[in-house]
């Protein structure tokens, strides 16, 4: 499962992406980061983030009113 979890609830653009980038910097390749966010814009933001940086977006779903993302560091 996820190696690390980042709770970005209550944070708006661009904080979820910036926090995720910072956390990923401190992780090893192939590790998975689980991100929780409430910003609806974060869905598209993380898609673009992974596309641009080459990190793999394993999962993107909405659960319990929050958005959950699983990103694998490449």
């Amino acid at each position, binding site marked *: 499962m996820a190696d690390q979890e980042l709770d970005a609830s*209550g*944070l*708006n*653009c*661009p*904080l979820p*992406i*910036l926090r*995720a*980038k*910072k956390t990923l910097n401190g992780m090893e390749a192939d590790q998975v980061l689980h991100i929780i966010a409430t*910003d609806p814009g974060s869905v598209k933001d993380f898609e*673009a*983030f992974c596309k*641009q*940086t*080459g990190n793999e977006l394993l999962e993107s779903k909405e659960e319990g009113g929050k958005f959950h993302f699983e990103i694998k560091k490449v």
Partner: protein
Amino acid sequence: MEEKKLAIIATKGTLDWGYPPFILASTAAALGYETEIFFTFYGLQLLKKDLDLKVSPLGNPGMPMPMGMDKWFPTLGLALPGMEGMMTSMMKKTMASKGVASLEELRELSQEAEVKLIACQMTVDLFEMDTADFIDGVEYAGAARFFEFAGESDICLYI
């Protein structure tokens, strides 16, 4: 994949104009862009150690205001003493309650993400500013130096 370059020229020093350069720069850096911001004229206010930026309702048509004020409040009334201060604190409160980062935080994140901050030496001299008032990590240079980077940039924005 070659790194893309983003060049931003920041010329304004109010709260509402201060956000776009730092949000765009920090996001671009997070996406892997090489980013440089050139601060000139009032943009230099964004580099002060103690940020005390205001937002003025005057000259900002289209600015959303509470109680629908933007629809009925006379423009002349916006010039009354205290209006600017009130609008500024209201905007800051709204931003905080909606989880929007403070300018200081965005600026710090930008520097952490290795966004280069360049201050226009000419403007510093023009307004006789004291560089001790500015944050660390700023390069002082002229337009020609900035064009070195801007000329190669994929995106160049004037804010």
